[in-house]
């Protein structure tokens, strides 16, 4: 078992541990947010924001804030730049969607492509100037656990904790808004702030998740655990618990598979999440079939 060898070796453990800490933090946070993302049908906006992060990475690369050996201050700087880019993208999407003639779908599509293009050009320019190859497309798109240092892991842990605190603090308003956005303000719920809060939390979690899961897969982490849990339970507290459980199990399966098979960890984690989702759906179908059969017999 290569996994046990790696974990037994102090050097390898030192390389993997920050990634594992980041992974656990991301899994818990994204699993909680995923429930709201799925129920509010916000997965495409998540896609748009995560691709906008690519533009932010380009800007950070031009400023020299890239690579695995960033100091704590540099890691915070890089995080802030990418986060600002994501928030700006979310605001541009909201502004475009509010105007006549542009649907939210179109706005997200345009922002997504524009940010990716900008990111590609800036990264190309930055690495050409440095005369280096850069982090490689695969690690940007699909993540690289070895590129996660302790600075990143600490930033990820703090941000995740902050997201969880805000989610808990705002839970009643967020749930009322998410359940019935049209009527909730008539009952004293704030009309706009829950959406803004959720968008900021989404941006924060996407930027945090990118290091491990990459630009493309960060969105998946914000959808699959929630979808899996919703296929398995009709009670909100259970759904959140199952979502967190599914994300953590997927993280373990994905990381072990990644070490054993030497596959990209982000892809393995998301692959495990997809597998769990498929199993949950199949179990749901089997349950429905069983219930229909029992009714027919009765």
């Amino acid at each position: 078992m290569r996994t046990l060898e790696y974990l037994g070796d102090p050097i390898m453990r030192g390389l993997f541990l920050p990634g594992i800490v980041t992974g656990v933090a991301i899994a818990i946070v994204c699993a909680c947010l995923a429930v709201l993302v799925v129920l509010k049908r916000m997965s495409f906006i998540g896609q748009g924001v995560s691709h906008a992060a690519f533009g932010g990475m380009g800007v950070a690369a031009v400023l020299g804030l890239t690579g695995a050996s960033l100091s704590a201050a540099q890691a915070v700087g890089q995080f802030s730049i990418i986060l600002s880019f994501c928030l700006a993208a979310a605001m541009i999407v909201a502004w475009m969607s509010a105007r006549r003639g542009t649907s939210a779908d179109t706005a997200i599509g345009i922002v997504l492509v524009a940010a990716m293009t900008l990111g590609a050009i800036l990264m190309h320019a930055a690495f050409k100037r440095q005369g280096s190859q850069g982090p490689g497309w695969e690690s940007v798109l699909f993540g690289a656990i070895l590129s996660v240092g302790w600075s990143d892991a600490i930033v990820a842990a703090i941000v995740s904790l902050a997201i969880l605190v805000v989610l808990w603090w705002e839970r009643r308003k967020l749930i009322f808004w998410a359940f019935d956005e049209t009527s909730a303000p008539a009952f004293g719920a704030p009309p706009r702030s829950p959406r803004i809060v959720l968008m900021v939390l989404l941006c924060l979690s996407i930027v945090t998740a990118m290091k491990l899961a990459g630009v493309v897969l960060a969105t998946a982490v914000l959808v699959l655990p929630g979808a899996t849990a919703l296929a398995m339970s009709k009670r909100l507290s259970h759904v959140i618990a199952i979502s967190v459980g599914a994300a953590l199990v997927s993280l373990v399966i994905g990381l072990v598979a990644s070490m054993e098979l030497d596959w990209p960890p982000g892809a393995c984690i998301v692959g495990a999440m997809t597998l769990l989702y498929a199993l949950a759906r199949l179990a749901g179908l089997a349950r429905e079939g069983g219930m229909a059969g029992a009714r027919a017999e009765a």
Partner: protein
Amino acid sequence: MNQPPATTPHEHTLEYRGVSFASPGVEAPALSSISLAVHAGERLGILGPNGGGKSTLLKLTLGLLDLQAGEIRVCGRSPREARREGMVGYVPQKVDAELAFPLSVRQVVTMPLVVNLAPWKRVPGETLRRADEALSMVGASDLAERPIGALSGGQLQRVMIARAIAPRPRLLLLDEPTVGIDVAGQRRFAELLQSLRERLGVTIVVVSHDIRTIAAGCDRVACLARTLHFHDAPSGLSPQVLGEVFRHDIAEVFGDVHVDAHAAATCHVDAGDHAHHHCCDHHGAPPPAGVTLNVSAKAAGAAAPDHKEPPRANA
């Protein structure tokens, strides 16, 4: 949520004074010079065509839109204050809620009671009891544990009413509550409103384009087509008034509109003790010509019209 303070029978729960509103970028006002007072414990029906400004008036009453002219007082407060203090209950026209949400009916009814509860506080048992009481008042106690997505249309509507009355509001606003409900369902709905009024003493404002909804059990009717054509009692709903209010709807379907004088004589609405009062002189306007409106609406207590099909404004 606040317990409603005691009110004298003649206190106005809701008052509009010269309310006007135009949507941004639209020249024609959605509402023009609306003045109207609703007494405590009264049941008012606001009847009007689609696009007549009913929903705008409701949004203004809820403080979800900013007034441009005039004043609205809800229990002596601004609409926003009244809403924040839980004095207004609202039942939306269409349930836009995400019904796939993994919530029980009890959780949904509890939402308005806990939305502004301090995050560190647990939901008190009294709050849950109040939600159960609201469910019991609408005859939906047996649904409390059901997932919200597993209800029929009628059940969902009762749960939405329970959600609206759970904070014990002094004013209950219902937007097109009987859309898509059959005649028997409408009768049950009218009876439910009557029983809520008796048990809670709540002032009820029902907004609809359907005369049957309005006629069944309302003390007074206000006809709204951008401006107010107002009557103290449903008996004032003459074909001329309806023709005037729904003129655009009727003209769109039939072209020229004519109100049959004979129909006016058959218009018989009995809602008990009332006095006619006209805020504006709609009789001064010529009756539309071309189509015969044969109106016959009887609104004794909670009954739906019992003979002849009344005009469906949006037919």
